[in-house]
């Protein structure tokens, strides 16, 4: 007995062939075929445009990990990132009407997340700022702590705090290009800004981040 399924289309076979007496040829009974409704990516997009829940479920299965990773990197808060993922896929059926097919579906879905991220980022920044005030974090003494002695987790924390000092556009550009290692063309498709603008934002973001990390004592 074997079964295989495709996540977004094709025919899902369950069980093995029966030896039906049809000229001695093994035949899979029709009842065991479970057709998936969207055999092609275009069909999936059509299904999303119709608001079909099954299509949304398939899109979620295929792309939720990438959207979640982007959300966590941009917002820096797992719970808020989960809410952003939820909101992204909820608005997908209405947003997909603007999908022209000039980028991949995953890129398009991440662009939805980027558009909706603004208030989540602000909220998480405010939360971090409030927690920083409450927590007794020693001020950097200016002598500089060698990066090698810091854990990677702490380095990530410092970067996330430094990202809070950037405007949302520069923050998004940095996360897309440096953290997610996307090309400026992909980042341009996600944000809707021209490539040159993305590169400019990235330049200013890196400059600012260097200053902040130096101030934090990371050399």
């Amino acid at each position, binding site marked *: 007995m074997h079964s295989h399924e495709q996540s977004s289309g094709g025919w899902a076979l369950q069980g093995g062939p029966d030896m039906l007496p049809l000229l001695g040829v093994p035949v899979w009974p029709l009842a065991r075929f479970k057709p998936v409704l969207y055999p092609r990516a275009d069909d999936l997009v059509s299904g999303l445009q119709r608001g079909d829940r099954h299509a*949304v479920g398939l899109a979620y299965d295929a792309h939720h990990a990438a959207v979640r990773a982007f959300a966590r990197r941009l917002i820096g808060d797992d719970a808020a990132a*989960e809410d952003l993922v*939820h909101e992204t896929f*909820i608005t997908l059926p209405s947003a997909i009407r603007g999908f022209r097919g000039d980028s991949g579906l995953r890129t398009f879905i991440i662009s939805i997340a980027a558009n909706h991220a603004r208030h989540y980022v602000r909220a998480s920044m405010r939360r971090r700022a409030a927690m920083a005030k409450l927590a007794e974090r020693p001020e950097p003494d200016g002598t500089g702590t060698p990066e090698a002695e810091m854990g*990677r987790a702490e380095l990530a924390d410092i*970067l996330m705090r430094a990202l809070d000092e950037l405007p949302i556009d520069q923050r998004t550009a940095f996360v897309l290009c440096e953290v997610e290692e996307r090309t400026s063309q992909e980042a341009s498709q996600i944000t809707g800004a021209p490539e040159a603008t993305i590169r400019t934002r990235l330049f200013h973001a890196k400059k600012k981040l260097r200053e902040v*990390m130096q101030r934090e004592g990371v050399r």
Partner: protein
Amino acid sequence: MTERDVLQRAAAALRERTGKPCDDAELTKARVLSDLQRVQRRRRRAWAIVLPIAAVFVGAAAWASSAGYTERWWNHVAKYVVSSNRKEAPPEDAWPAPRGALPAPSMSAAIPLVPSVSSESTVEESLLDGSVRQAEPTQNLNSRHTEHRSGKHRSVSNATPKESDADASTQDGRADDAYRKAHDLHFVEQDASRALAAWDAYLQLAPSGRFAPEARYNRALCLIRLGRRAEALDALRPFAHGAYGTYRMKEAQELGGALETER
């Protein structure tokens, strides 16, 4: 370590930390699908309410159209929108039923007024169903009034002012305001003297306006009330002779007969 390396390593650390699979993925998927279902159900419920209402509306509109109500309603509305150049008379119920309308003097059987001017009417259109159509040509009708005019009341302007299209709408607005004012003075305040002046003012603004026949008739009633019988007879004579078709014809004949009798 260069700063660039620090930034790259920090980015890598952030990438590594946030790239791990999440335990809440299935829960979030369930939330998404459940919320979508709720939205779709809400939309279907809204359609279930809106569609029958729309169907009833469309059905009622179709029935009204086939029964002729739509045309009647449209004509009624159009009279308030279309400019005074249209050749249509306002319906008799264009204004609310007058409260405390001037009472007609008691009279015996109606005696038609003896016409003192030629009964040749220059009115080219007859009335339908008691509604008034605008008399035409205006100059001929006004000249008939001029023959019987006394010096006690202001004359109605004979000339239809020539106005540009831009001024016409302003003129219409002023005429409508003047009519409303006269109507209030006549039916609400029941001040015959001021109402007479107001009717004259309206007729001066719009001597061939869409409410001109009604204004002329109400003016005649004011004259009756003020005891100016000769002028009232002059004002009622066109109505009695059918210059405005059957609009107020019977009433004018009865009133004129009563006034003649009281002389």
